């Protein structure tokens, strides 16, 4: 039982111990596409490496490309930092594959953001921030659904960042302070770059 739990824990918090390279890349790309399609259905944009926003209508390709931009913007700096910092030889396909797979928690975020209640509540907040706009009616159910989706989205963002860090450490064989510093630098750089690229894409 303990061994089963430990195996399950490994799959949840460090799946890259068992899967990397081409398999992880295929699975990760499938998850990115599925998140994009579900995001399109629920008008949920992943408009930055760790960003989630709801409400703006856009064609399906925009949602799909957002996922790919986020993935590439994170994986490429990590690969170059790996080349500089790691004393091991490593494969680019492991970095790309594990970083794609690390984004799977956002598939759950896309699912919990599907109900219309989230958009109604987002519009309600936006109308409160812009005095001229008309305030739409919302119910307590909308509020409860939005609060639940918000909690899940925050939890999934933390989980995804933890997975991306583990993926980086394993695929480039980097540990300790060097890993933490280079990961944080990559995350900040990727966030800025992906936001810029996606805003350019949408506008």
């Amino acid at each position: 039982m303990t061994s089963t739990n430990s195996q399950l824990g490994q799959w949840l918090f460090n799946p890259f111990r068992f899967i990397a390279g081409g398999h992880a890349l295929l699975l990760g790309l499938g998850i990115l596409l599925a998140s994009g399609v579900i995001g399109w259905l629920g008008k949920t944009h992943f408009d930055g490496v760790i960003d989630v926003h709801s409400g703006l209508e856009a064609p399906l390709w925009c949602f799909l490309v957002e996922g790919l931009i986020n993935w590439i913007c994170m994986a490429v700096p990590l690969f170059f930092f790996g080349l500089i910092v790691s004393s091991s030889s490593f494969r680019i396909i492991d970095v790309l594959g594990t970083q794609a797979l690390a984004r799977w928690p956002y598939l759950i975020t896309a699912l919990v953001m599907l109900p219309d209640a989230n958009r109604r509540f987002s519009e309600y907040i936006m109308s409160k921030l812009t005095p001229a706009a008309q305030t739409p009616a919302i119910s307590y159910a909308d509020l409860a659904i939005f609060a639940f989706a918000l909690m899940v989205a925050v939890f999934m963002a933390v989980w995804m960042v933890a997975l991306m860090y583990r993926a980086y450490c394993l695929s480039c064989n980097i540990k300790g302070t060097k890993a933490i510093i280079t990961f944080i630098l990559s995350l900040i750089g990727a966030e800025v770059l992906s936001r810029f690229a996606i805003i350019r894409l949408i506008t």
Partner: protein
Amino acid sequence: MKVLPTICPACENRLKVKSLTCQQCQTEIQGQYELPALSKLSVDDQDFVLEFIKASGSLKEMARLLRLSYPTVRNRLDEIIEQLKLAEKANEDIGKENG
């Protein structure tokens, strides 16, 4: 099978071989012999090295056999290489101290 001890249980220093015996004629040779570098690895690591050699040095094959990902296996091999380098360095240092 008994596991060859490589660390002194009293002071935790590296052990050396003091005597070797021929089981056929009972000839016994005494001296101070270094243990081979591989014997300084843990039993798990020694098994890993053996499996790696049997897999013709293929990390992909090792990953398939152990049901682990390629980078996991490669990182373990890197750790073993690091341990062997440290063991070699320690041996060289002892050699220099003994003249």
